[in-house]
C-alpha cells in the first residue's frame, strides 16, 4: 500500500530544513522498501511546528513536528507511516485546537493541497467561484462582491466592490487588474504563503476581477525578496494556461484574461498602489498624487483594479459560497475573515484566520502562547512598520478596522509582532524614523527630511541632550509629517513613534 506523506515546500518550512527532511524521507523509504507518495504542500500555518510532516491515514492527516532530517529514521522506526504516536506527533492536524478553532476561508486550501496540482485544487472546491462568475453578468459579480462587505486587505480597507464597479463603468480600450504582492510590512507573510501554497486561488480571484471589470490583462507585482513565491506563481500560471483557466477562452467562456508576474527591486514604498503602478511602468517608484484614482487612470493611464493578494484571493470563496456566507462573519463594518499573522517573539507563530472582532489579547496569548523567549510580553506592534505599539496590558482591543483606529492603531495587513521585556522602545521609535528615512520616495519634504530629523532628535532624547525640548520637537515633527505627507509612509510613521512615546515614556527617560 502506498502511503501519502506531506512535507511543506513553503519557504518558511524550507528555511528551517523541510527540503532536507523531504529528501531524508524519500531515502529512508527507499532503503526500507516502503512505497510512499511524497506531496510538497504549502504550510498549514502552524509555523512553530515546521517542518511539520503529515501522514495520510484513514482517520485523517496525522502530524509530526518539528522534525529534522536527523529525526527521520526514528520516525520510520516508530511506525509513523501508520500514524502511530511518538515523541514528534501532534495528532490529527485538523483537530489541533489552534487550527480547529480557526475560520479558514481565504486560507482554506493552503497547506492542504498540492499547490501546483490544478486537479487537486478543483477537488477542494477550486474554480467553483470562477464558474459562478462566468455565468453572471459583470454588474452581478460586482454586486456580489459589494454585498460580501469585502474590504481591501492591503492596509487601507477600501471596499473592493466599489473599486471594481468604477472600473467596470469606465470604458477604455484596455483595462488592467494589478495584484499588489509587495507585502513589505514586517510581521506579514500571508500573501507569500498563499502564493506558495495555493496560487490558483489568486489566479482565480484575479480572473474574476478581470471579468467583472472588463480587463483582459493582469499583473502580479511580487517583491524580489520572495524568490520562491515568484517561482511558484510562474509555474502555476503555466499550468493555468495549459488547463484553459487563462487565455483567450477562460474555461470555455469565450472571455479573455491572462496574467504575468513582475518583480520588485527592494523598495517598501512600491507597495503603495500608485508607486507600484509607476514601478510596473518601469519607472522610479514615486507616489502619484490622487486624483486621478487608479480605477480611472491606473497602469499606463488605463482603468485599473488594484487589490492586495488576500483581497483577490477571498473572492473565489465569496463567489462560490455566496456573499451572505462571507458577510455573516465579522463585526460592524469589518466583514468576513482576516488572515492574522502572528510574528516576532512569539511561542506559537503563524497564520490565524478568524472573523474580524477577535481580541488582540486572544491572538497573542491564547493562540500565540506568549513569547518564544519565555519572558513576559511587553509590547505588540500591529499593522506593520507604520502601525502602533500596544502595551501588554492594552491588548483587549477588538481586531477590526474601526476598533483599532479608535484605539489609536490600524489593522494594516494584519501583522502582529510580539516583543518581550528586553525591548527598548526608544530604539523601536528610532527605527521607525530610520525606516522612513531609508524608504521615503522623496516627493514630500516632511517625509524625506522630517524622518532624518526624527532620527537625530530621538538620538538626542536617548542621549539626554536637551531632553524636554527635543521631546517637544519630536511631537511637532510628528504633527508635521502627519499633516504634510502625500501618502501613509510619511503620514503614519508618527504612529509607531508616538505610541511608543505614549505607552512607554520610561524608555525615553533612561
Amino acid at each position: 500500500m502506498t502511503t501519502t506523506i506531506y512535507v511543506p515546500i513553503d519557504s518558511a518550512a524550507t528555511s528551517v530544513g523541510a527540503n532536507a527532511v523531504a529528501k531524508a524521507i524519500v531515502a529512508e523509504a527507499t532503503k526500507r522498501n516502503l512505497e510512499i507518495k511524497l506531496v510538497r504542500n504549502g504550510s498549514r500555518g502552524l509555523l512553530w511546528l515546521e517542518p511539520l510532516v503529515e501522514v495520510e491515514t484513514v482517520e485523517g492527516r496525522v502530524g509530526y513536528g518539528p522534525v529534522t532530517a536527523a529525526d527521520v529514521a526514528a520516525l520510520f522506526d516508530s511506525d509513523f507511516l501508520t500514524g502511530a504516536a511518538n515523541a514528534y506527533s501532534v495528532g490529527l492536524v485538523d483537530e489541533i485546537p489552534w487550527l480547529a478553532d480557526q475560520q479558514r476561508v481565504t486560507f482554506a486550501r493552503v497547506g492542504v493541497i498540492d499547490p501546483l496540482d490544478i486537479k487537486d485544487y478543483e477537488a477542494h472546491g477550486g474554480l467553483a467561484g470562477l464558474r459562478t462568475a462566468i455565468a453572471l453578468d459583470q454588474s452581478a459579480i460586482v454586486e456580489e462582491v459589494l454585498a460580501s462587505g469585502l474590504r481591501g486587505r492591503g492596509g487601507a480597507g477600501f471596499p473592493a466592490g466599489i473599486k471594481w464597479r468604477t472600473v467596470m463603468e469606465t470604458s477604455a480600450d484596455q483595462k488592467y487588474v494589478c495584484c499588489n504582492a509587495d507585502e513589505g510590512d514586517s510581521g506579514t507573510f500571508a500573501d507569500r504563503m498563499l502564493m506558495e501554497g495555493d496560487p490558483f486561488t489568486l489566479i482565480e480571484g484575479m480572473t474574476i476581477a478581470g471579468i467583472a471589470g472588463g480587463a483582459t490583462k493582469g499583473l502580479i507585482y511580487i517583491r524580489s525578496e520572495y524568490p520562491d513565491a515568484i517561482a511558484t506563481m510562474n509555474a502555476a500560471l503555466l499550468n493555468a494556461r495549459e488547463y484553459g483557466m487563462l487565455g483567450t477562452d477562460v474555461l470555455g467562456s469565450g472571455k479573455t484574461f491572462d496574467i504575468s508576474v513582475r518583480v520588485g527591486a527592494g523598495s517598501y514604498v512600491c507597495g503603495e498602489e500608485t508607486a507600484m503602478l509607476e514601478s510596473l511602468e518601469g519607472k522610479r517608484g514615486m507616489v502619484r498624487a490622487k486624483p486621478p484614482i487608479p480605477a480611472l487612470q491606473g497602469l499606463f493611464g488605463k482603468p485599473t483594479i488594484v487589490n492586495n493578494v488576500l483581497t483577490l484571493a477571498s473572492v473565489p470563496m465569496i463567489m462560490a459560497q455566496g456573499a451572505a456566507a462571507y458577510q455573516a462573519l465579522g463585526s460592524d463594518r469589518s466583514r468576513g475573515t482576516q488572515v492574522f499573522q502572528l510574528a516576532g517573539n512569539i511561542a506559537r507563530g503563524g497564520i490565524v484566520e478568524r472573523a474580524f472582532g477577535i481580541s488582540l489579547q486572544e491572538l497573542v496569548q491564547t493562540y500565540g502562547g506568549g513569547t518564544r523567549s519565555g519572558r513576559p510580553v511587553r509590547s505588540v506592534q500591529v499593522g506593520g512598520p507604520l502601525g502602533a505599539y500596544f502595551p501588554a496590558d492594552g491588548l483587549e482591543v477588538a481586531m477590526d478596522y474601526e476598533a483599532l483606529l479608535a484605539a489609536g492603531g490600524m489593522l494594516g495587513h494584519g501583522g502582529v509582532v510580539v516583543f518581550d521585556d528586553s525591548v527598548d522602545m526608544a530604539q523601536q521609535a528610532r527605527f521607525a524614523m530610520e525606516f522612513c528615512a531609508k524608504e521615503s520616495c522623496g516627493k514630500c519634504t516632511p517625509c524625506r527630511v522630517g524622518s532624518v530629523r526624527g532620527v537625530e532628535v530621538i538620538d538626542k532624547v536617548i542621549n539626554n541632550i536637551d531632553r524636554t525640548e527635543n521631546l517637544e520637537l519630536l511631537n511637532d515633527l510628528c504633527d508635521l509629517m502627519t499633516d504634510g505627507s502625500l501618502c501613509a509612509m510619511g503620514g503614519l510613521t508618527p504612529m509607531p513613534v508616538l505610541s511608543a512615546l505614549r505607552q512607554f515614556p520610561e524608555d525615553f527617560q533612561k
Partner: protein
Amino acid sequence: MAYAVAPWSLDAGQAVLELLPTDERIILPALQAVQHGFGYVPKEAVALIANSLNVSVADVHGVLTYYHELRTTAPAPITVAICVAEACQATGARELVAHVGANLAPVGGRSDDGQVDVVEVFCLGNCALGPAALINERLVGRLTPKSLESALADTRAAL
C-alpha cells in the same frame, strides 16, 4: 539577490535585452534582466538600455539609482541578506548583525576573502521564524550566529 552568471560584454548585454518580451521593454525590467544576467548593471549597460528602449540615459540612471537592489558593481559569489525589520529585531536580529559585523563583514561590506557580501533587508516574510536571512536565493530562519555560519559554510562548499 542576483549573482554573476555571465561576464559582461556589449554583445552579451544586447542579447539579454533582445530576449525581453515586448511588454517588458521598459526601464526597470531591462535593468533587472541585465542584473540577472551579469550580477550587476555595468556602466555601459545604461547607455545600451537607453538606446535600445529609446529613452534618455538620465531616465535609465534615475531608475537605476532609485531601487535599493539594483547595483553597479559586481557582487561577491555569495550575498547574505539579513532581515533587520521589527519581527526579526524581536528575536535577535540586532545581535545577529553585530556578530556578523564582528566576524564576517559589516552591513554593506564584503568578507576579507571576497566571497560574501553582507546586506540588510526589511522583511523576508519569515517573521514567525526569525531571525531570518536570504543566502543567495535560499531563505533561512530561526537563525543563531552558529546556524548562520553553518548555512554559509554549506553555500561556500556548493560554490
